[in-house]
């Protein structure tokens, strides 16, 4: 697998990604579970959490690109830990963990893009465990059985791992991704981000009537995790454009007709999530010296795609048609914004051309 070196920092950030998302969703569900008007509070809490955690990442990313020695990942985990300690005050805990989540993602995102050596596998592996953390954290928070010792333990382990295996003193190299199409920069970025927005919105429409038991509730998260990791690995092997297009087009029948079939639906979810690291690397291709901003732009797009779900209630009769149309639209955006990179050789060539950029 092409992870681009620095495998210890990747393992630390990947593990911490699971822990941070687990803790944040544990706090969200645990904190708002017993509140008055709990459904309304939970909805507003979620919207606020998403706005802070996803919306602030471009700004934090830009600041960290300009000041690469800021240990933003560890700082983020520390904030989430502080949120966990403030669990008795749900809104304070929410703000702390949302801001901490944003900081952590930027730290991990920069690490996954900067040391990727032009390969998508690294970012695929880093982003994958978030879905798993969300699924398990939601279950833990909802159950009310788990006490906060588990997230506390996970957060402490994350801080120790990040302190041991990440170094902000490493030389700052420009990213060398070669997956953006030859269209003008503005078109490529707009199309890539549009693809993320559409996918985020469509993701909320996927019908899953089969989610009944505990394991079945976790299954979409497990498949999303596998899909993201596979997307990076296969993207490096077969080309970003080929894999991105094939995954989105193949996912259509599985998602559309998998409402009552676990196998069809989870296959669709796995395929649907494969484009995530690909689009991240396409955006990063446009910002070789701003991996933090590139990562933040994709999360801001995710936010833009999820916001309508809080305000619009789609009639059941049109969900299927809209889902298929959006999937096709996202595939179209992916087709126009990506290209099949020529692998490591072209990246090495690009690196030679640009030369190391030490700070």
């Amino acid at each position, binding site marked *: 697998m092409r992870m681009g070196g620095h495998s210890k920092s990747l393992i630390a950030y990947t593990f911490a990604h699971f822990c941070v998302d687990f803790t944040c969703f544990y706090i969200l569900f645990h904190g708002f579970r017993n509140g008055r*008007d709990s459904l309304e509070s939970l909805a*507003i809490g979620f919207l*606020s959490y998403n*706005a802070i955690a996803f919306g602030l990442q*471009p700004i934090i990313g830009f600041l960290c690109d300009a000041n690469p020695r800021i240990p933003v990942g560890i700082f983020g985990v520390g904030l989430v830990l502080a949120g966990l300690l403030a669990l008795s005050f749900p809104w304070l805990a929410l703000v702390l963990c949302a801001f901490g989540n944003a900081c952590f993602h930027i730290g991990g995102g920069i690490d996954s893009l900067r040391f990727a050596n032009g390969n998508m596998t690294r970012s695929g592996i880093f982003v994958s465990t978030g879905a798993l953390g969300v699924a398990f954290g939601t279950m833990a928070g909802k159950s009310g059985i788990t006490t906060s010792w588990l997230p506390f333990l996970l957060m402490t382990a994350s801080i120790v791992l990040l302190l041991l295996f990440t170094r902000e003193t490493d030389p700052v190299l420009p990213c060398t991704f070669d997956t953006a199409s030859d269209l003008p920069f503005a078109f490529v970025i707009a199309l890539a981000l549009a693809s993320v927005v559409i996918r985020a919105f469509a993701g909320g429409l996927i019908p899953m009537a089969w989610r009944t038991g505990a394991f079945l509730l976790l299954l979409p998260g497990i498949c999303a995790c596998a899909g993201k990791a596979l997307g990076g690995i296969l993207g490096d092997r077969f080309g970003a454009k080929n894999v991105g297009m094939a995954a989105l087009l193949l996912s259509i029948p599985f998602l559309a007709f998998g409402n009552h079939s676990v196998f069809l639906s989870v296959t669709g979810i796995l395929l649907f999530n494969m484009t995530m690291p690909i689009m991240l690397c396409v955006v990063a291709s*446009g910002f070789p*010296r*701003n991996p933090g901003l590139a990562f933040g*732009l994709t999360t801001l797009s995710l936010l833009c795609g999820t916001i309508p779900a809080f305000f619009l209630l789609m009639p059941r009769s049109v969900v299927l048609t809209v889902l298929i149309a959006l999937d096709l639209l996202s595939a179209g955006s992916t087709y126009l914004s990506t290209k099949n990179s020529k692998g490591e050789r072209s990246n090495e060539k690009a690196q030679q051309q640009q030369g190391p950029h030490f700070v």
Partner: protein
Amino acid sequence: MKRLSSNKDPTLYDVAPVPIILLLYGIPLLLVVAVVVLIIVAVVLIRRSRRKNREKANPPK
């Protein structure tokens, strides 16, 4: 809200839902406005970073 503003002699019963209305509609709308502002900021950051990248790639002779 219209019913409340047209009522010249509001009782506690009339006024009581106001904070809830503000909470349920005000916060989500505020967040949407905040996201729109964040998008505008992101566009500014994209332009700035693009300009810096171009300057580094083609330094003035």
